[in-house]
């Protein structure tokens, strides 16, 4: 089967809340945008039956319903949708990115990685059946549902103990299943201290989940003592799994910087270390993973992708497509920089060469994409950088003149 090639301005990988929002912003900016999703649109939020902390829905809303609204909204702006797996992202010679699927290579000026993550599961029998029917992964999301009730937490890391403490404000009893020996938890010292002093928190040591049981809803978790093999039935109203969260970034190893746990590292503008690649939502290294934070990330990523493409266009039309042009990187708010510009302008007129001043006061993106430096002058000929000199200390352009 011959691979097709399609050109896009922006390709968003991942159809959760973050990806859909990025696509909405890009599409609304009239960029040719593609959203790629490996299974169904909606992402992790569709596993939540009631979202009560997404503003605008005072009565709360079903996660799937909310995602349907997102879906309807971003499609309004002409975004194309492909329901398929992304096989990889590689750099093309012309600086664009190739997002490949098994049938098509999508060539994009900017890419937004919004592949999200998934909660680690125990793999115990019954688990699948009770996901979101008593098994939960987020205390912030679900604590209110268990007011006055008894819950069991699986895990003993920071998330388990801190979220467990949060749950004690709502629940009558919070039990914690820990794989370690009595007195040992993985959580930080402060959380541990608080947990051990909390009357509502009880620990069941040396245990892991053997199975989940119930009717329509979960009502019992059978724990197994790892030393004796004894099965300990725990009757509960809910069970929280805090045994880890895994970002979907296997595909991007070696492409963008990841932190030690595999999350994509970005700055506040959602930029990764690769120019033109942005990240949004749960896949990003950050503290709070919610629909509301994914939306914020997506908006920034979509907007920054638009800005980046604007910069690329400027670079192409004003610099790379010219026979001969001098590029000057300066800060327009600095007297000295402006004085040098005046000198350069008369120099350029004398030598009948175009000049492109790049003001870095508001943004140094163009300079960074071109690999330039503040107070440097570069000569570009037909898209190629021929020579660069610094005009920081003296105004000596002889090395450029030799190439004019």
């Amino acid at each position: 089967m011959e691979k097709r090639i399609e050109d896009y301005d922006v390709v968003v990988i991942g159809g959760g809340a973050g990806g859909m929002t990025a696509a909405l912003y890009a599409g609304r900016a009239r960029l040719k945008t593609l959203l790629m999703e490996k299974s169904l649109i909606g992402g992790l939020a569709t596993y939540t039956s009631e979202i009560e902390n997404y503003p605008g829905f005072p009565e709360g809303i079903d996660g799937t319903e909310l995602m349907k609204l997102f879906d309807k909204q971003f499609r309004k702006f002409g975004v194309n949708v492909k329901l398929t797996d992304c096989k990889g992202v590689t750099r093309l010679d012309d600086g664009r990115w190739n997002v490949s699927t098994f049938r098509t290579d999508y060539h994009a000026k900017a890419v937004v990685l919004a592949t999200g993550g998934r909660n680690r599961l125990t793999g115990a029998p019954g688990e699948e059946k009770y996901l979101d029917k008593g098994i939960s992964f987020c205390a912030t999301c679900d604590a209110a549902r268990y007011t006055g009730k008894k819950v069991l937490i699986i895990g003993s890391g920071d998330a388990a103990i801190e979220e467990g403490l949060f749950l004690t404000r709502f629940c009558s009893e919070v039990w914690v299943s820990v794989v370690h020996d009595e007195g040992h938890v993985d959580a930080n010292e402060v959380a541990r201290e608080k947990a051990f002093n909390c009357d509502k928190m009880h620990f069941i040591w040396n245990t892991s989940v053997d199975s989940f049981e119930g009717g329509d809803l979960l009502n019992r978790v059978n724990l197994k003592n790892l030393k004796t093999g004894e099965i300990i039935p725990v009757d509960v109203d809910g069970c929280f799994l805090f045994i880890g969260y895994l970002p979907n970034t296997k595909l991007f190893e070696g492409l963008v910087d990841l932190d030690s746990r595999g999350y994509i590292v970005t700055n506040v503008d959602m930029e990764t270390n690769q120019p033109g690649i942005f990240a949004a939502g749960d896949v990003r290294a950050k503290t709070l993973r919610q629909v509301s934070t994914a939306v914020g990330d997506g908006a920034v990523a979509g907007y920054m992708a638009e800005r980046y493409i604007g910069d690329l266009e400027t670079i192409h039309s004003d610099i790379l497509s010219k026979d001969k042009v001098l590029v000057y990187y300066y800060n327009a708010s600095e007297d000295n920089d402006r004085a040098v510009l005046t000198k350069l302008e008369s120099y350029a007129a004398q030598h009948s060469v175009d000049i492109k001043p790049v003001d870095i006061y508001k943004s140094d993106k163009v300079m960074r994409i071109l690999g330039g430096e503040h107070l440097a002058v570069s000569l570009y000929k037909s898209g190629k950088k021929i020579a660069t000199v610094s005009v920081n200390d003296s105004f000596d352009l002889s090395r450029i003149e030799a190439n004019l």
Partner: protein
Amino acid sequence: MAEKYLDCLGEACPVPLVKTQNAIKDMAVGDVLVVGIDHTCAMKNVPDWARGQGYNVEIEEVGDGEWEVVIEKTC
């Protein structure tokens, strides 16, 4: 590398899935099966099954409420 179209328009679950499974059985590795469906439940169980087999899957929305599930038999 043959490409074959399987018309399941107007068919309710589980017929599209069963037809897909039968059609793929007779195909060679590298062949592509395009399944036309308009029943939303088939849009989930057909791709789910195919992915579970390790095949490449792409879903294309060809019209309002009408999809083509493209499956490449990879193994």
